[in-house]
């Protein structure tokens, strides 16, 4: 097992400090649009879900790349090797989580590399919703989203009262 990012959406307040930290690492500016971790704000449900690559074992991005430009780093991250990447974008399509992006300036794929083992987003999070811990690579968002979707659908259709117990 290697250290991965473990994200706890229930602790997130939606401040996007993680996005700001990530974009600062990439660009030296505060540019959320370039962040490799994104916070989705579900305002009417009071839910905020930061998501980024969780370095899944299947690594479809790596499998799909026709020029072997995605490698596994010493920090156990799947990383884009800039000198090899030809910018075809196949990895961005292959990733089922949408966490490989295309940089319109460099014309290359770009994804979370765990900041070489010291993730800036983890440090920036004020509520410790992002941890860098020994954990199996797993889809932490899946069960959470499924659960929330059910609840939300019930509220929308009136099957469950908003506010729960009362």
């Amino acid at each position, binding site marked *: 097992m290697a250290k991965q990012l473990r994200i706890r959406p229930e602790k997130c307040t939606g401040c996007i400090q993680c996005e700001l930290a990530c974009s600062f690492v990439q660009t*030296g500016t505060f540019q959320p649009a370039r962040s490799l971790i994104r916070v989705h704000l579900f305002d009417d449900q009071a839910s905020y879900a930061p998501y980024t690559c969780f370095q899944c074992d299947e690594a479809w991005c790596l499998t799909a790349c026709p020029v072997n430009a995605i490698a596994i780093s010493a920090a156990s991250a799947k990383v884009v090797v800039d000198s090899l990447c030809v910018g075809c974008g196949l990895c961005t399509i292959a990733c089922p989580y949408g966490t490989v992006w295309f940089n319109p300036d460099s014309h290359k794929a770009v994804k979370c590399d765990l900041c070489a083992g010291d993730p800036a987003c983890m440090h920036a999070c004020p509520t410790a919703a992002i941890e860098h811990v020994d954990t199996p690579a797993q889809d932490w968002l899946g069960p959470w989203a499924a659960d929330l979707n059910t609840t939300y659908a019930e509220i929308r259709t009136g099957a469950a009262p908003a506010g729960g117990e009362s």
Partner: protein
Amino acid sequence: MNGGWTGTILRVNLSRGTVKKDALRLDWARDYVGGRGLGARYLWDEVDPTVDALSPKNKLLFVTGPLTGTNASCGARYMVVTKGPLTGAMTTSNSGGHWGPELKCAGYDMVVVEGRATRPVYLWIHNDQVELRDATHLWGKGVWDTEEAIRAESGVPDCIVASIGQAGEHLVRFASIMNDLHRAAGRSGVGAVMGSKLLKAIAVRGTGGVRLADPRGFMAASWAMKAKLKASAVTAEGLPTYGTEVLVNVINEHGALPTRNHRETVFEHAEEISGETLTETRLVANKACFACTIACGRVSKLPGVAADKFSVSTHPRNWRIAGEGPEYETAWAMGADCGIGDLDAVIKAHWLCNDLGMDPITYGATLAAAMELYETGAVSDAQTGMPLRFGNAEALLAMAEKTAYRDGFGDLLAEGSKRLTARFGHPEFFMGVRGQEFPAYDSRGIQGMGLGYATSNRGACHLKAYTVSPEILGIPEKMDPHTTDGKAEITKIFQDITSAVDATGLCVFLTFGVGLEDMLPQLVAATGTKYTMESLTRAGERIWNLERLWNERAGLGKGADVLPKRMTDEPIPSGPAKGKVNRLGDMLPEYYRLRGWTPEGEVTPQKRKALGLSRL
């Protein structure tokens, strides 16, 4: 390098239908820091203080600060600067959320809106693409529907929308401008100015970045302030746990929670509308604005039954889903001030105000004044259409809609309590200064707040010199709320410092945990300008005096620093502050002296010279 700024402003002329890009006046940005100060400087140059606030000659400025859009904690704010229709004074209303940073990322430091459109429009900003779009199909919609509609029709789901609701469209004098559904540039009627220009919304999507002069230095300074916020009891525990609502019980226990239009100052149902009750029974989660590490925002939910309890017609589907608030000010204005101890009613009315785009402080306070008129027999059922007794929660909800649509008696409420009470022959029931209603602290129980209200440039306001900090909370040091000693000095210092904070683009709530000296290194690293504590405080003083000078020309300078008789002549009838009145007369002369103004409160030529304001 002009760190912190993009160097470009947008100038939108609605009468001509044109959009122009101008260079930012960097000399003004330096001298007035940004935000509130920069906006004041532009307004000084461009708007005659005597114009009608709702005429095309007034301009509406959306101004960011140099730290807006950075990762400085709470670097989320944008300031709306204009002539306020509620007051006639220069108003500076600011809002958090994500709109200000998004504007910066799109490449603009501010937006100047001029003239008046011939039909409803909205401004669309997507990086370099800036255009006016038809909004006739949006006119009549509430804030929440407007945001949703623009996101859908633009095909840019990440755009951030600042808009007005029905209140702004109907020129309610205390209409707000809302962004991110629940964030408000709330006071003095900035939304009515937007409505008078037939500008429904400004939608922004920006994918650029905010550049800094010294990125490494900035990161170090930003970490240092965050660490300090984490160590403060208020910013690390009090505000995140209970939100601003934590104050209800605190202020009530001091006998300074204005109740039933300030007739009393202790509310018997305070517990029921308090932050503690909200947290235990209604809170879903905290919500942070852009880059905020405090997260005081509340997201609450109404229990199933309560969602359908009151008969309002607006936006029924949303009553069952979570929304933000209430905040302390709302819980007070629509709760204690109206004698209403029903938290569900307060939450629902708060959401209603957000969706309609209406300041809940002035709305609640105006309704409270109407209730006093009703109970004294100055207005009748025939005029109001319903019994406006203190404690009538149904009226709170129903009148909010009527006010926003200017329907029936709501048309009179929409004018604010000064005009309302004057109309019915009881101007003494107006509880405010310069036409703007007091916020949630009775100045008879907290002496400094009386001076702060009386001298506040935008009319009665708690955010321009929050002496509650020392007088009640003991931050930075405890002062006796019942004496006037030192209050003139602390008020002046707080006004100057707060002006500077408001100019940076940071949130004034930071000052619960850190001081201007903690913000300074970030400002220096971001801009590359060598501000010092002295020059920054001076910039704050410059801003305060410029606003005052503009107000003098608008007829709201000297002579306007007065409190209602109830504050100065009617002792508090009961509770911990029983027998107290505000002794404004004891503080004002010293305040004028400390400001370097004349004994009548006029800015002197010497003071203008000292602040670099001589040649304006």
